[in-house]
């Protein structure tokens, strides 16, 4: 079975994003970019399935400009066998991404798509579900455990009240939650080897997908700032302030 792992290049999670002065978006020029953390987890799970003999090939795919190749090299350094760049300079929303990924799935015929539950830039949490809908495949979202047996995949899902387990027929789409696994680091020799692994580029325009956003960003603003607080010295002072000043207890 082949596992397809969509990955996204995002502003590194350690960086505090800055809103562009003209309110058009968030500054990404000259900012450190890396692979979306949830996608690293999704990739790690795919690699573990291959190591258990349940998958024979792991293919990473990303959508974006030429420079987005760097996350594909990272994916191959972690262990993906090959990679596909769907090249476009357009801003693509989950609706268009899920359509482009559907085209890749139809070409590659994977038995499983393993992806992150959300990207830490747009915080949408939608692409996996939309892809599953477009393919007519079952979905296992917010996965914290994945087990494949007898042509089905059992997925433990992190839900509001606890953990829900579902059983899905393959092929299926799963979206990884933080607790699914601990992603591995790419070693230096593997980073070198990744340079030689095959990376195919496909023009997004050749896939017949309408990339026009249905959701237009009108403006982006800083959230309102909280006013500076005070430091109290004793528990008594804290309780007194909460009672008389803040009036919350």
């Amino acid at each position, binding site marked *: 079975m082949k596992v397809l792992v969509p990955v996204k290049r995002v502003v590194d999670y350690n960086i505090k994003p800055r809103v562009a002065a003209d309110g058009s978006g968030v500054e990404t020029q000259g900012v450190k970019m890396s692979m979306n953390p949830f996608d690293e987890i999704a990739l790690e799970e795919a690699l573990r399935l291959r190591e258990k003999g349940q998958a024979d090939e792991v293919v990473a795919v990303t959508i974006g400009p030429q420079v987005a190749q760097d996350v594909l090299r990272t994916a191959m350094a972690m262990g993906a066998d090959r990679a596909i760049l769907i090249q476009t300079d357009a801003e693509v929303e989950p609706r268009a991404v899920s359509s482009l990924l559907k085209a890749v799935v139809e070409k590659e015929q994977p038995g499983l798509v393993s992806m992150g539950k959300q990207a830490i830039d747009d915080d949408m949490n939608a692409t996996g*579900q*939309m892809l599953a809908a477009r393919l007519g495949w079952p*979905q296992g*979202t917010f996965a914290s455990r994945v087990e494949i047996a007898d042509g089905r995949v059992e997925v433990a899902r992190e*839900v*509001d009240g606890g953990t829900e387990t579902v059983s*899905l027929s393959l092929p299926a789409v799963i979206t990884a939650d933080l607790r699914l696994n601990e992603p591995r680091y790419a070693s230096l020799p593997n980073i070198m080897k990744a340079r030689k692994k095959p990376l195919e580029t496909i023009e997004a325009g050749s896939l017949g997908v309408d990339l026009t956003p249905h959701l237009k960003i009108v403006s982006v603003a800083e959230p309102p700032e*909280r006013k500076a607080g005070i430091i*109290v010295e004793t*528990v008594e002072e804290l309780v007194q302030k909460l009672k008389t000043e803040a009036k919350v207890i």
Partner: protein
Amino acid sequence: MTALVLIEVENGRVRQASRSAIAAASHFGDVDVLLLGEAPAEAASRLSGIRRALHAPSLKHALAEQAAALLAGLAGSYSHILSAASSTGKNILPRLAGLLDVQPISDVVAIKDESTFVRPIYAGNALATVQSSDSVKIMTIRSSSFDPVSEDGNEAAIETLETPADDGKSRFVKLEQSQSDRPELEVARVVISGGKGLKDASNFHTLLEPVADRLGAAIGASRAAVDSGFAPNEMQVGQTGKVVAPELYIATGLSGAIQHLAGMKDSRVIVAINIDPEAPIFKVADYGMVGDLFEILPALAKAL
């Protein structure tokens, strides 16, 4: 314009997060609600400001595959389809959007007009105003941003729905629920949360519970505390956990990483207790106390 809200019931009552989603939906005209599973439809029919309660009793476990198919069949009658940004809403609504080729709008915190909405991006570090050109708007609602509707409305008509045929591709296996007598985290008036500084799970009980008991508070946790096994994951507050905005949020033994702040920085009053005076949590705290939480928390419980 008419809106449809997918709602959830817990212990026989409509979840507060769903009632917040109904409040948001009332901006768009008449509101119908859809309830899945065996929960009593009567609980939904008494909600204030709704026109009709639709009930699909055979969809017991709200599996996304069947629920989205059911919603897609109803979508033609509605201009807006909403739910709380709960794990159920986030699972089902984007799948519906995929079936209808619509771009969903996640975690809406404000409604400007029928097609213009505000939502946080980058872990709440920016607020995006977005405009949808889709004919049906599909969105999840951040419950802490809308006051829930009350449960003492007129009795709305209840209509029972047939469920689309199940293709068996997705099967429910089990639900392991975590039990708690405390208020639900997302709706609690007071939240006290612990981080890695609590050092182990037993301290969540011995240090946080006495304070929570005095204040009628829910208990939350940072991701680091959850990852270390100090607390179950449904207690996690943050970008990838729950988003809360209580009257009072007490953060103890957690540094205040941006992913955590995304889940609590809209609280009305924030108190931080931390041994490190440089911890970022002090930048958002209204009241900070620098010191050892193993001494401060018992003293706080006593003083309340």
